[in-house]
């Protein structure tokens, strides 16, 4: 072994600091998101408008911006935490909620609804999320069934099954797309590109119980995931019921991603980037990583949405394009910096 540079980080201080900064950043971002938009409203007038309780400004704030900003925050938190948990579960930092087929399962559910239920336009806003969620859950269930072996669920098999399922679902969606009419196609593309412009209070409140349940399933996994970084057998040696952990992680992330996808369509990158950024800035300890990723995911989603709806106002950019465009380069920069720090290369 060559001489290793002896360096030391005040690790836990770094974790706590990161969480603190994010805990301050999130409310700031939410206020920023609620205060800025295509419809010009002076920030200082907002309290007066809210007190008045009527008028177009009041409508824009309460019926459009508030649910939208909160929806973005919720979706960001769900995707980021599901991403963090799945990365921990698969012991692979490149895992994305899309990988185990949850996202494509949800997409298939939505596509089935749009193409197979004719004359559904009026129902769409409310029925589509349910179908997307069911699709995601069904895909995860199928994956679970495929990946089971007499010795429990092996991660390698789970991954392979996920890949197979993804391509199968992709083919099914392709089939539906080629069989769909022009109008259905428009619905599909709107839905797969993602965006928060359709988030209403009703949609938000419908998704909230699912979101909370997902968070309740995912947050307690932190210690088990920490043990799992040593390996599946080692986690069991440390008293972690690895199969129960996997079941809860898959169910929780299916629920989280399904809810997120149902609310906003396919908003990519956040589930991959938020946990990564937190790990690079603070560290990989899941006790901090899970809440940290959720906060960071919220901040990223709200900011991305803010840019998406203001950059080209009164029109709008697809938010997924922005998350990729902003997240990618920043992420690359951090990777390069991290590489220098650890490997001196």
């Amino acid at each position, binding site marked *: 072994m060559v001489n290793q540079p002896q360096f030391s*980080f005040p690790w836990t201080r770094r974790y706590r600091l990161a969480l603190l900064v994010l805990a301050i950043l999130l409310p700031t971002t939410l206020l920023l998101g609620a205060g800025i938009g295509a419809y010009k409203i002076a920030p200082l007038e907002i309290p007066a408008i809210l007190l008045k309780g009527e008028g177009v400004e009041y409508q824009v704030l309460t019926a459009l911006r508030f649910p939208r900003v909160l929806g973005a925050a919720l979706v960001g938190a769900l995707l980021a935490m599901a991403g963090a948990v799945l990365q921990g579960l698969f012991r692979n930092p490149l895992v994305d909620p899309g990988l185990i087929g949850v996202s494509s399962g949800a997409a298939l559910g939505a596509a089935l609804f749009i193409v197979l239920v004719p004359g559904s336009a009026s129902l769409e806003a409310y029925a589509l999320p349910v179908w997307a969620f069911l699709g995601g859950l069904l895909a995860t269930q199928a994956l679970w069934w495929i990946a089971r072996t007499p010795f429990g669920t092996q991660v390698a098999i789970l991954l392979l099954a996920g890949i197979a399922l993804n391509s199968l679902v992709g083919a099914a969606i392709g089939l539906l797309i080629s069989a769909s009419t022009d109008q259905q196609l428009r619905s599909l593309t709107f839905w797969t590109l993602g965006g928060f412009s359709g988030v209403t209070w009703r949609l938000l409140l419908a998704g909230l119980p699912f979101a909370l349940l997902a968070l309740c399933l995912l947050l307690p996994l932190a210690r088990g995931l920490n*043990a799992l970084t040593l390996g599946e057998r080692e986690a069991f*040696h440390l008293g972690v019921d690895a199969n129960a952990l996997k079941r809860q992680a898959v169910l929780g992330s299916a629920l989280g991603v399904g809810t997120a996808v149902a609310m906003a369509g396919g908003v990519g990158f956040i589930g991959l980037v938020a946990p990564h950024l937190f790990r690079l800035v603070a560290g990989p300890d899941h006790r901090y990583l899970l809440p940290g990723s959720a906060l960071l995911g919220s901040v990223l989603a709200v900011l991305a949405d803010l840019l998406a709806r203001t950059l080209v106002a009164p029109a709008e950019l697809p938010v997924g394009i922005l998350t990729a465009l902003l997240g990618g380069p920043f992420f690359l920069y951090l990777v390069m910096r991290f590489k220098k720090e650890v490997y001196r290369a």
Partner: protein
Amino acid sequence: MLEAHNLGYRVGGRWLLKGLHLSIAPGEVLGILGPNGSGKTTLLRLLAGEIPLSEGEILLEGRPLAVYRPSALARTRAVLSQLQEMGFPFTAYEVAFLGRLPHLEGRREKTEDHAKTLRYLERVQALPLKERLLPTLSGGERMRVEMARLLNQEAKLYLLDEPTNHLDPRYAMDLLQLFRSLAQEGAGVVAVLHDLNLACRFADRLLLLKGGRMVAQGRPEEVLQPNLLQEAYEVAFQAWEDPSGTRVILPLTATRG
């Protein structure tokens, strides 16, 4: 402490282990020997509760292994398996702290848990490593951190799978010394070993396996007989006593034999 009766483990109609009996008392070190593929690691995994028995019974502290929940099991026995790459770069301290996990069930971590982690890191002389990232440690350093994690479990029984693999003689001796002293404190130790001479010095009793069956079990001098070893390994062995009276075993190559 640990009793195993008539152990059998079968995969697809083939018995990997069959008809094994063994027991470990507190303060005792049991070494498991045998050629590659003789079922040593499988036996350890059965004892750890990782895989279910096909036949027989294992009693840990008088209760069948199957009734233990994973966390209760982890408070009773600690396992050192072959080192793997970590999923994410944790610090040495974070890894050692993971050993507290079975004791944290249903409660928050306290200062005491961290104090213990530091104490055990100190005991294995790994305290200066505590803020280093695990992937940057050498094999010996990494093993010391794993030892601290095992100690942190405060278990009564230690199951070790080839603990001296990839360690130079000094680290290997340090490690075995540590487990001897743990045994003196009342712990039971089961270790799968490759090096016959280390096994001879380290273990109170030895179990020699071949093809999943027991060839011999007993005190090192009883088991490390050239004829028994030849039966197990299919190579001729020669044994003699060194000046201190300890037995030394060496295989004889075919040309020389």
